[in-house]
């Protein structure tokens, strides 16, 4: 009987598969500590056995770190600890958080991991993550040193148990990284100066629109623009002193009090200005529809005069423009424009989200190994090596110079430990660019180096820096800025008159904004007492 045969076949197949996996799942434990640490490695004590730790942070499609794989061996040699990282996809953080939550619920918390969306608060309250207040200075002094004291003060103020303890290691950004960028070569071509005031800026945008700076004979230039959810157009808001990170309004002192920048008169004025630009065709008509790929595509097509992004990675756009259109452009830093009555700035948040928390465990070997890993990872002497990764996989040697290979998800393992991203300093970034760039790319990469220096005077560390996500608890819509995006988008598009802004402020306050503001101010008072 046909069905009968299929059934038998199926059962056999299942059995075969079971036998196969039974064999393959056991081979991971029998080869530990087989390769001795390389001689001359001071960080890796030779006598002790290497402890394996499970370390979780995001992965964007690269290969996992399995026992005895090249990256595992590299970390073991450099840092003296075995690092195992299963494949946990980042996917905007949602998937990562889901998997992490399940893992925690199953009582299998990773030894060291990146917490997300404030889960560290509850974990700390429940005693699930380690109190690092005494452990870090004693066993991981490099971590204490790499992060400025004022940041530690905020971490202590953020302790959810209210005892002023350190429960997480924050990421820190020591320099301003995101600014407005403008095609300096277009300005030169049209005989214009770098704009200083808002009026200059509007004139420049008009010239970009009308005078064909890309020289293709078509009026296809996009003077400025941004992306969906009214994001990535911070240059238009910065001049009004609106605290904002990649389009997300943030907290700063307005009128003497810590306030959400979206509900300030500054925001109202900025939206009015953006709406004016939109109406006059100075802003991309699709600004509120562009996704990342689409907006970058326009920039890469040699069409965009001014955009907002990382000042240091303009080379990505410039190299693409050169490839697509054969033009070697110049994206320079757009200064903060003077607007009467306002004090503008580009937003800097030194204290980023938490980078690591440590599992609270009775197993002293594991705990000590985790601290050792942290200590060696935050040792600046190791950073360049950690950045380069494994030779042949992540970089190659060209004429005695290490050159990073392009990302390749089918061959490269996830470079999970990147302290230079968690404690980013301008010097380190500049050095990376200088040391890892082949000559033929210098024209573009050097612009990024120049921009880092040029941009710094325009940054301000905002008062809301370091505020924990827990102030938004129970008010997810406020955290997701749902209402703001709706009103901002409609005002920019001209569907709402600017007078609607007051309605937005009112609604925002009533839908939880008041409560969140109160919590934010309480937090601020606690940090600055």
């Amino acid at each position: 009987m046909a069905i009968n045969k299929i059934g038998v076949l199926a059962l056999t197949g299942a059995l075969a598969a079971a036998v196969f996996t039974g064999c393959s799942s056991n081979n991971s434990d029998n080869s530990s500590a087989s390769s001795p640490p390389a001689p001359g490695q001071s960080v890796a004590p030779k006598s002790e056995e290497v402890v394996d730790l499970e370390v979780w942070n995001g992965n964007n499609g690269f290969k996992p770190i399995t026992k005895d794989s090249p990256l595992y061996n590299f970390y073991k040699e450099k840092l003296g600890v075995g690092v195992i990282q299963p494949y946990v996809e980042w996917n905007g953080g949602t998937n990562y958080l889901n998997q992490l939550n399940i893992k925690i619920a199953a009582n299998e918390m990773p030894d060291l991991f990146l917490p997300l969306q404030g889960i560290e608060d509850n974990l700390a309250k429940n005693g699930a993550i380690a109190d690092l207040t005494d452990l870090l200075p004693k066993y991981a002094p490099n971590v204490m040193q790499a992060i400025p004291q004022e940041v530690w003060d905020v971490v202590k103020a953020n302790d959810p148990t209210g005892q002023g303890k350190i429960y997480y290691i924050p990421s820190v950004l020591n320099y301003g990284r995101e600014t407005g960028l403008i095609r300096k070569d277009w300005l030169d071509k049209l005989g214009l100066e770098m704009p200083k005031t808002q009026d200059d800026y509007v004139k420049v945008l008009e010239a970009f629109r009308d005078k064909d700076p890309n020289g293709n004979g078509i009026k296809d230039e996009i003077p400025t623009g941004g992306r969906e959810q009214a994001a990535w157009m911070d240059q238009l808001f910065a001049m009004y002193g609106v605290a904002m990170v990649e389009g997300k309004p943030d907290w700063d002192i307005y009128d003497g009090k810590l306030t959400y920048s979206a509900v300030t008169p500054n925001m109202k004025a900025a939206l009015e200005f953006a709406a004016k630009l939109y109406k006059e065709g100075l802003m991309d008509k699709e600004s509120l529809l562009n996704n990342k790929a689409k907006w970058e595509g326009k920039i890469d097509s040699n069409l965009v005069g001014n955009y907002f992004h990382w000042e240091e990675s303009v080379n990505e756009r410039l190299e693409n423009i050169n490839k697509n259109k054969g033009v070697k452009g110049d994206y320079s830093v757009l200064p903060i424009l003077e607007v009467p009555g306002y004090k503008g700035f580009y937003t800097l948040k030194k204290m980023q989200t938490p980078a690591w928390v440590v599992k609270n465990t009775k197993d002293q070997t594991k705990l000590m190994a985790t601290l050792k890993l942290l200590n060696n990872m935050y040792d600046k002497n190791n950073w360049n090596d950690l950045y380069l990764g494994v030779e042949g996989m992540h970089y190659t040697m060209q004429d005695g110079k290490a050159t990073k290979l392009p990302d390749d998800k089918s061959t490269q393992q996830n470079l999970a430990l990147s302290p230079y991203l968690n404690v980013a300093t301008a010097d380190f970034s500049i050095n990376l660019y200088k040391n890892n760039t082949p000559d033929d790319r210098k024209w573009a990469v050097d612009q990024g180096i120049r921009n880092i220096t040029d941009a710094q005077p325009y940054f301000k560390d905002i008062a809301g820096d370091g505020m924990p996500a827990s102030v938004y608890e129970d008010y997810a819509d406020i955290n997701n800025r749902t209402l703001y995006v709706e009103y901002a988008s409609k005002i920019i598009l001209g569907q709402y008159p600017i007078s609607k802004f007051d309605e937005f402020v009112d609604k925002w306050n009533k839908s939880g904004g008041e409560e969140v503001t109160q919590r934010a101010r309480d937090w601020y008072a606690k940090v600055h007492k």
Partner: protein
Amino acid sequence: MLKTRGEKTFVAAITTLLLLFSFIAIVPLLSVISISFSSKSAVVQNLVSIWPKQFTLDSWSYILDRPDLWKSFFLTLGSTVIGTALALLITALLAYPLSKVEFRWGGVIMVGVVIAMIFKAPIIPYFLTVRGIGLYNNPLVLILPHILNPFNLIIMRSFFKEFPKELEEAAFLEGSGYFRMLFQFVLPLSKAVLATLALFYAVVIWNQFQTPLLFLQNTDWFPLQMKIRQFITDDNIIMPGAASTVDLNYNERTLRSATVIFAMIPIIAVYPFLQRYFVKGAMIGSIKG
């Protein structure tokens, strides 16, 4: 034959409308196909709409050269075939006794089935249970959780219930037992319902995403859908001094498109042959369920 002018207009209108709909349905697909055959430069500049621009096979050769994608493909194909066969067997083995009035515990078991259909297990208990059985990070998880679906079981049970009693009585007189009855008489005469359910099961296993997402961490065992997402997941972290990708003639978007098409081809290939069973299957469920 069409008689009146009214009828002719009616048919013409319907045809136009349907053509329009199929056009609308096919445009996004065409766009994805053409992106997969276009150069990076054209795609980056948003030049590609329905036809490929700067035709190239680079994305495809990159995709087809990846052994891990093929591995996932065959893994998914294998688990679909084995899983479907197993699912049909198990479902039939439970549906048959449940369709018999003389089976004393049938009522109780049926209530259990309905409860399982209505109340899905919450994610964490489900996770703990499946892990407790030893299916965590075990490729069998691609098959075992799918082999009995209460809804499909009810469809099959209803079908068996309609089976002519006389035929079975005759068989029993011949000295046949229930097992022989099921495998020698009932199943061979149930091809319609088997084909329908096979399709239901196969589609679920082929497209499965949530289960492997929860239970598989070893990338070696990733089924196709997970592998695809691994391909298309976006890098939002910008690495300082990252290597230049300017010289590559593909990027994430072209690779993504090629991968999506790659995963669709098998389904598209078999669908026309099996589509009619889908319709039939829905009928079985609705009339007799």
